[in-house]
């Protein structure tokens, strides 16, 4: 066990894999400086600085993975996936299906996501729902250094493409890079347990397994990444009001740990999804489907991002799932009878 930062825990997994397996290479924009220690140790042949050509290097990463390498392709921000989605949607995700399992694509896409530092709507998106909607991809979103390490260990051993999302509010390196810039004059609401923690080097966290972070029989809060920490804080507060919460850290979006969700919600009969991704047509809806398909009829609510994330810090704070919004939504659910969600307040209707 060692204390590591969130980013450090990921880097350690990558470094260890590179030292052990010559097939592991890192490529992406600025990796020579962003991963300077890897660059200094493994050289330019295995840490390849790319031009701002995400479509080309992501497609190349797919080809490289097919031809024997195990590339870690870095997409600086997941917001930029729009310029290289084809490589994921139509290539990485489909080769195994097209070849009926004969040819696999052991590719890890390492990318950052999330907001909370005032960078505006093109640089703070989550987008894990969009990516998880693509059959053939695995999508993981850790919330602690231990999980970040363990999921990267697993991703590097996985035979198929894995999208590894690193939240910028957890990853000190990225927050410093994009948010703080050496200033003492700004502050961020960084979840401490997420930013730094104990890590057992080499310990895998299996892709597709959720973790119950807190137990309570009244309500299930399902979340991931920063949302887990917000949910835990809300649960702490709610406990003082007599409302006991399960906090389920999904950790993997696809494949979804249906059993863990169903087991929790079967007990609590209330489900609140806390999701930093866009509310509609994504993760939160999928969780609703999972519980309905399991024959459950929980009171259901969601605290998500409803629209393009605004730049202003105070507006951003309102747009992102906050402890306040979570607690308020939980209280509303607790008041509702089981199996009847309270009407969500203020949703636009299509016919309005």
């Amino acid at each position, binding site marked *: 066990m060692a204390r590591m930062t969130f980013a450090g825990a990921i880097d350690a997994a990558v470094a260890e894999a590179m030292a052990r397996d010559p097939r592991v290479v890192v490529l992406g924009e600025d990796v020579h400086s962003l991963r300077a220690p890897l660059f200094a140790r493994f050289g330019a042949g295995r840490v390849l600085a790319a031009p701002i050509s995400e*479509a080309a290097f992501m*497609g190349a990463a797919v080809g490289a993975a097919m031809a024997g390498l195990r590339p870690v392709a870095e997409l600086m921000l997941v917001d930029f996936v729009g310029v290289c989605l084809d490589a994921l949607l139509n290539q990485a995700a489909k080769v195994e299906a097209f070849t*009926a399992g004969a040819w696999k694509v052991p590719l890890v896409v390492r990318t950052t996501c999330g907001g909370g530092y005032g960078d505006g709507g093109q640089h703070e998106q989550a987008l894990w729902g969009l990516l998880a909607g693509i059959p053939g991809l695995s999508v993981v979103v850790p919330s602690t250094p231990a999980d970040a390490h363990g999921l990267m260990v697993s991703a590097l051993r996985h035979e198929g493409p894995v999208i590894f999302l690193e939240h910028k509010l957890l990853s000190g390196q990225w927050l410093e890079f994009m948010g703080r810039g050496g200033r003492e004059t700004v502050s961020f609401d960084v979840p401490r347990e997420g930013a730094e923690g104990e890590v057992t080097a080499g310990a895998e966290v299996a892709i597709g397994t959720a973790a119950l972070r807190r137990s309570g029989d009244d309500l299930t809060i399902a979340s991931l990444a920063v949302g887990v920490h917000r949910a835990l804080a809300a649960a702490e507060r709610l406990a003082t009001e007599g409302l006991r919460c399960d906090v389920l850290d999904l950790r993997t979006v696809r494949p979804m740990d249906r059993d863990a969700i169903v087991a929790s919600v079967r007990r609590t009969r209330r489900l609140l999804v806390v999701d930093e991704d866009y509310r509609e047509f994504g993760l939160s809806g999928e969780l609703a489907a999972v519980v309905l398909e399991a024959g459950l009829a929980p009171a259901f609510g969601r605290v998500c991002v409803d629209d393009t994330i605004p730049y202003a810090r105070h507006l951003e704070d309102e747009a992102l799932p906050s402890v306040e919004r979570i607690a308020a939504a939980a209280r509303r659910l607790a008041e509702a009878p089981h199996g009847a969600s309270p009407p969500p307040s203020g949703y636009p209707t299509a016919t309005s």
Partner: protein
Amino acid sequence: MRSGSDLFRQVARARAFEDALGALWREGRISGEMHLGTGEEGVAAGIVACLREGDAVALDHRPTPVLTALGVDLVAMLREMLGREDGLHRGRAGHMHLMSRAHLAASSGIVGSSAPLGAGFALAARTLRPGAVAVAFFGDGAANQGMLLETLNLAAAWSLPLLLVCKDNGWAITTRTENVTGGDLVARAAAFGLETADVDGADAGAVRDAAGAAIDRARRGKSPTFLRAQVSRLDGHFLGDPLVRTARAPATEGRGLLAAVTAASLARGGAGLGARGRSVLGLMDLLRRARREDRDTARDPLERARRAMAPAEAARIEDEALAEVARAVDAAGESGWRA
């Protein structure tokens, strides 16, 4: 490198295979868009002649001539395109996604995607199999696709052991490439810092020679090459291409379209007469060209290769190729499996 008769044999095999695909498609036994590689067989044969084990190829929506030349099992490919459970990919892939892991060959139906894929193959080759190379095949239309343009740069910047082969047939579906392309593609590639070559793609030997030099350079870790091979589209964009059908039989097949165009060009409201006239003339020009190229023998790589051979030898090799493909078609159609 193979001799002339080897090249001819590959061209003949590829043509026999493409023609068999055409027949199966017309019979309704192959579904969807079937893009034949007729007209490109010389490019396929010439380049595959320079490849060896450990090399990799990334292919576009006309993958079959290269795959036949590489020696991918014809029966397995046919069964795949027939959608059979005993096909190359158990019927999951179809004609636009034929792959062979053993041959390090993969195709994709997204225009331009073969270029980054090939760059990745080249990166893996350099890292794991020094001396091995990769080849990416694509069309002239693909040369305007962002990921392909990016790859021209990436290949140069990373000095990848990659040969980029542009099968330039002047068309992208119904679009004349010259109408939507600025500059010349070879000069464009050169400006990205690539070595370039420009050959007659109907001439398999010329392709082989140009590719050979480029591939040798790549094997030695020298700069990557863009090779433009000028080819002809002998069977339209895909089988059943409405442009070709209209060009062949304007009075019957093209009637609906031509009537609609005429009516529209006379409709009230719209552009002035000049602009309308230019549009109609432009469409007529497309039909004229499509008709001219339809199975045009002058630019047919098989004809060309045949001429360079002793007639008897050519006939023997062609017969062999036809027989091989006929056997494969028979074997592919064998029962023992039904959808």
